[in-house]
């Protein structure tokens, strides 16, 4: 089985860190893994995507997901979710934080932030108040862990493999709040019928 997950967000939101956690979780479970992103310009507040591809048997070939072939889209911001939506399979699932971050083209008044994003993305999957939930846990930056918790309910990777990836991916003082956020994401996914 080949699973392709596209992460999308804004430079500085932790797109690369979140995709690393998934990659290391699958690696720990014995899967083949490839992953692609670009560094540099993208990090200066621009759009960022990270491609993660996993295979439980055989090997992954291209690190890039072909257009329209992502099984899951994990978006940390609504506009970036919409921008990446063409990468999703017709029956793929989007997992999106309701958060909005104004691009400079909107903040400086040249363009309008599009309306109705939440509704459009809801049609393609789950829209989650991840930042709000993480803020309630005392760490808004754990929003990505909430999203990963939701994603984890769709993937055949054991909770123990996730735990190991989290232990390898976070400094001790950030680990527990992120793990709580992850578990919260799992609960939310189940509550939404998954």
């Amino acid at each position: 089985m080949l699973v392709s997950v596209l992460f999308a967000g804004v430079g500085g939101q932790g797109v690369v860190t979140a995709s690393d956690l998934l990659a290391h979780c699958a690696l720990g479970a014995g899967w083949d893994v490839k992953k692609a992103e670009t560094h540099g310009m993208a990090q200066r507040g621009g759009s960022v995507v990270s491609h993660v591809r996993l295979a439980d048997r055989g090997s992954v070939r291209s690190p890039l997901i072909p257009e329209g072939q992502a099984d899951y889209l994990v978006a940390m911001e609504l506009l970036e979710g919409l921008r990446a939506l063409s990468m999703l399979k017709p029956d793929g699932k989007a997992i999106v934080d309701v958060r909005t971050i104004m691009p400079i083209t909107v903040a400086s008044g040249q363009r309008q932030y599009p309306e109705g994003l939440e509704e459009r993305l809801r049609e393609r999957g789950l829209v989650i108040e991840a930042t709000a939930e993480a803020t309630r846990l005392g760490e808004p930056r754990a929003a990505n862990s909430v999203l990963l918790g939701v994603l984890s309910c769709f993937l055949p990777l054991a909770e123990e493999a996730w735990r190991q990836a989290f232990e390898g991916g976070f400094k001790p003082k950030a680990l527990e709040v992120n793990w709580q956020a992850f578990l919260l994401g799992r609960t939310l996914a189940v509550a939404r019928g998954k």
Partner: protein
Amino acid sequence: MSDTDRLLLSGNEAVALGAWQAGCRLASAYPGTPSSEIVPALLRWADKLGGHVYAEWSVNEKIALEVASGASMAGARAMVTMKHVGLNVAADPFFTLAYTGVEAGLVVLVADDPHMHSSQNEQDTRIYARHAGVPMLEPADSQEACDFGRLAFELSERFDTPVLIRMTTRVSHSQSTVRAMVGRQEREPGGAPLNPQKYTMIPAYARARHRLQLDRLAEVTAWAEETTINRIETGEGKVGFLTAGIAYEYLREILPQAPVLKLGLSYPLPVEKLRRFREGLDRLIVIEELEPFLYEQVRALGVEAERLPDAYRLGELTPARLAVGLREIGVESETAEEATCTEEPTEDLPPRPPVLCPGCPHRGVFYTLSKLKTLVTGDIGCYTLGTLEPLRALHTCLCMGAGLSQAHGVSKATEGGQKVVAVIGDSTFTHTGIPALLNAVYNRGSFVAVILNNRTTAMTGGQEHPGTGRNLMGQEAPSLDFARLAEALGVELVLKLPAEDLSSLEAGLKQALAQEGLSVVIVEGPCVLQYRVRGDVFGVDGEICAGCGMCLRLGCPALVAEEHDDRQWPRVDETLCTGCGLCAQVCPKKALAPVSSRR
């Protein structure tokens, strides 16, 4: 880490591991995306697994290659890394090193950037390999990056030649699994031989070496026929493919069963293997990113072949793009079906370009320059972003160090009639800016040279340079004094201005522009990312703000506009604000102030 561990490594980390295994003792580089992580990764491997490695940020790629060549001559295995355009700078030693050859292995690693994710052009390094007559390895994933990193040193010593490893952004920055041995093959440097026939390239000796170089290429070609890194993968059908690097992985994604000749050594070509592969095929299609490098050589051999339409010379291949390109020349695949029938129409969404960070010390300079409305010749670095809306205060970007010389050329052409400001970052100034400034002073140029001193190489991730007071080995180092250097070169007016004070910037720049001749303005302010600069966050007093939008002209991501009543009402995003206070300085109503001052 043991011999059987499966590691998830980026191509850059993996090639560094291969170099470590090969006993690389010296690595030199100037940072450049996507190659910057390799040399630091090599130091980390040495730290973790043992073995002596010396590494440095050289001031530019030419010098980095010369340092590595000296080390190789002295018997130490050496590697130099750079981005594609870096090889233009290093081309001078590169071509002649192909004549001299090496003592210990010498590896030149160049990372190309198809699609220009973070570059000013998308030149194809493979053509350099052929032009200089240097063997070239092209890894397709991290496992090959590691294996070829090791092999490159072996080939270099076996054939007495520098070896080029060509990577691309997708190979350098993608991660994939690597199984690696942890052994290291040490070679103790015995010192450089006194061998002028080999290393002193006067015409008489160089002619002999050029002949030897051609003989050596013939030997490498013979090796290319034998090696398993150039392999024929038999398959179904009569349409076969010749490919190398990341394009191989894309092809395998789309057509897992097709016959393929996959090259690991993509220069020189294994001619006989190619002819053998071609026999029995109806069509041979060459799949490569950027230039028709392999294709033209294949055709020159008289072997019939095809390639993707010319439009595919531009930008990066992706699996979907390759599938669509193949369909255009009559090769069908499932990927092409799916890629051309995605549900979502592409729509006109507001773009999210990269921006100068909140609190960036470059913002005030560009805001001031945009008010002064002079021509600004730019350079390579974060500050190139000063060209975008709303600042639009930088008008050229050609190559490292060019801004100073372009300004000089403009001032000479217009006989001082057009005022010009050249801006250059501190690291870029040390790279190629110093000779440019010297040239302008010597030739009695007339412009304002602005050195943006943020005390790091910011764009590539914050590397040390001669102005930061530290080097890559973590040692303290002499810190270049830009003002004293400018004075020593003969610049008469040298000003130092604080990046965070708009009125000083404006007064200083106006003073410099009014001056006849050449002046240097050093703008001092540390990179907010690298030095984690954080002050009191600012807020807008809604009762005072008139919605004039002046603060929004700074293009600060922490200021968000809300439009109503035909006016633009700013709001400060407190999670992003670093408290630089520029917005308060431009506000005519004094509606912006530190939040703490109001509590």
